């Protein structure tokens, strides 16, 4: 079986490769955590592409219930149809709406399922999915049928750590924590996304980027996705690398900083620091 490796567009560290391959081989869910903007969601797309399998995305909100991933029984439409005397009302199956997991279970080809931001949901959500993810089957009460996965899907789960996940759930998963990439890896990532970027521009931009990340007290440190957005802007504007250059001690507010600093307090903090640095130097 072809394993998962870094691709042209996605630089995966060796530990991530091992974790993904373990999850694929043993057919257990992989739980991915990490700072926002380090490529948790993109990972699922890349895994699906690398393994050549369809991707089914299930985005979780605070109102999402576990049952919605399996199926929903639309009692309200049935009641309405009953009142209107519609023929469809006699078959309950007309009112069973398939969820994302059912879709994945029913698929003839093994699918990759992304359960995105599982921590957004209610605290009981992961517990409600334990058996379904373990056995890859569930029971539909309304029609008295058991849905069993034809091919056990590959399940990737992302979490931003807003809620703690139950132990019983964690025990069934593999776990990977995406660390913030170091400078070398970041250079590779930039290269992968923008192969034709000017070398000097990329170097200066990375200097500025890591300098900003080192500023203490930022509310939201810019992450990989912000860096990539910013670089794109810089390339579109075709700024010379000199515009970014600053000497070691002096902080300057980088051009187009709106792509990096997403919070007005952070911008203020940065302006203040830059002002102090100018005055001190």
């Amino acid at each position, binding site marked *: 079986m072809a394993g998962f490796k870094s691709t042209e567009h996605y630089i995966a560290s*060796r*530990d991530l490769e*091992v*974790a993904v*391959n*373990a*999850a694929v*081989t*043993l057919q*257990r869910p*992989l*739980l991915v*955590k990490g700072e926002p903007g380090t490529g948790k969601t993109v990972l699922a797309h890349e895994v699906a592409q690398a393994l050549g399998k369809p991707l089914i995305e299930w985005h979780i909100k*605070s*109102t999402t219930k576990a049952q919605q991933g399996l199926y929903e029984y639309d009692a*309200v439409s049935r*009641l*309405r149809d009953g*009142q209107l005397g519609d023929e469809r009302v006699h078959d309950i199956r007309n009112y069973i709406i398939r969820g994302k997991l059912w879709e994945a279970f029913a698929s003839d080809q093994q699918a990759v399922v992304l359960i995105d931001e599982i921590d957004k949901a*209610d605290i009981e959500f992961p517990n409600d999915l334990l058996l379904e993810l373990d056995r890859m089957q569930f029971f539909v009460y309304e029609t008295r049928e058991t849905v069993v996965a034809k091919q056990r899907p590959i399940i990737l789960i992302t979490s931003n*750590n*807003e*809620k703690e*996940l139950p*132990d019983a759930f*964690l*025990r*069934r*998963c*593999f*776990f*990977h*924590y995406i*660390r913030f990439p170091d400078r070398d890896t970041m250079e590779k990532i930039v290269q992968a996304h923008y192969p034709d970027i000017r070398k000097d521009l990329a170097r200066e931009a990375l200097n500025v980027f890591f300098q900003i990340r080192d500023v*203490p*007290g930022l509310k939201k440190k810019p992450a990989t996705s912000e860096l990539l957005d910013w670089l794109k802007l810089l390339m579109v504007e075709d700024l010379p690398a000199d515009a970014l250059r600053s000497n070691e001690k002096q902080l300057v507010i980088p051009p187009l900083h709106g792509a990096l600093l997403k919070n007005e307090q952070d911008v203020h903090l940065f302006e203040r620091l830059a002002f102090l640095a100018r005055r001190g130097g």
Partner: protein
Amino acid sequence: MFAHLILGLRAAGLPTSITEWLTLMGAMKEGVVEYSVDDFYFLARATLVKDERHLDKFDRVFAACFKGLEPPEGIPVQDLPEEWLRKLAEKMLTPEEMAKIEALGGLDALMKRLQELLDEQKGRHQGGSKWIGTAGTSPFGAYGYNPEGVRIGQDRSRHRRAVKVWDKREFKDLDDTVELGTRGMKVALRRLRRFARQGAATELDMPDTIKSTANNAGMLDLKMVPERHNTVKVLLFLDIGGSMDDHIRLTEELFSACRTEFKHLEHYYFHNCPYERVWKNNRRRHEEVIPTWQVLRTYGPDYKLIFVGDGAMSPYEITMQGGSVEHWNEEAGSVWVERLTGHYRRSAWLNPTPKQSWGHVRSITMLNDLMEGRMYPLTVNGIDEMTRELSR
């Protein structure tokens, strides 16, 4: 196979179960990784650790188990006091000097020697070529040069000659028993947010649905209402100035972060111990004081009261009338603490100093008694315990 790894992990307090162990064995059998130590480390980590807080402990246990080393008695290898290793100077060697440095032998020899040295060594050390410290040419320690070196407690690689991945301890920030760093802060806030909001957004309004369905001549008309949110009201009392200056940044971080998380959040400053007056603006602390009675009258008992302070002061500031260092107080601090905790049904004290040292400071012990034991350290764990206590 490798059974001592799981035993070591459990002994270190990681919640690793047999199921996970069997999963790891299964993965090995399936040949997920080939015969590489690093890959095995990654696989074991993905299988056995389920929370980034435990990654650091895992690294330590893995290092101890996998190299067949007994965890050294006395000083644990990776827990050298940071002060030893703080770089005071960095020694730069010329290439000739570098070439002169002889490697001591294989990795095993190095590790064995390290343990011997650790047993012998008692104090901090810097420079030189034998002892463990910083900027020396001994193979042990940090910021020095020896091609076969074992790095301890160095926060980045200087010569890019790291021997082992797990010794870098990149996940140290995520360990939840250490005081809050920037990242730890975020996790702590999520705990606070969980405390602030509970429940999903919508639910069916039965009475209204029945009524409007009836009005509609029996045609179904659903009515929804937003589910009630748990509106947690918080009253923050922040200790400012004096002995708190060390902790002020931490306190402010917590405070500013809290402000965005709660709808009903009021803050007041006090100094060392709350008395009959508090203030809202620290720059104008002498002009704009607010009587504590007014705070008690304004905010009802359903507010949850959180003190943030190190509680380090003279015991007289708590027990005696007129004990305050700033002004003459008519009533003792303990009276005010009791009055405040009596008025508010739920209250707690967050203390930024490490819990181990509380017993050594008399005033902290006294305050903890006044709070009936509801004093918590300002760590992720402490905040967790506090929110649990407050929302009970």
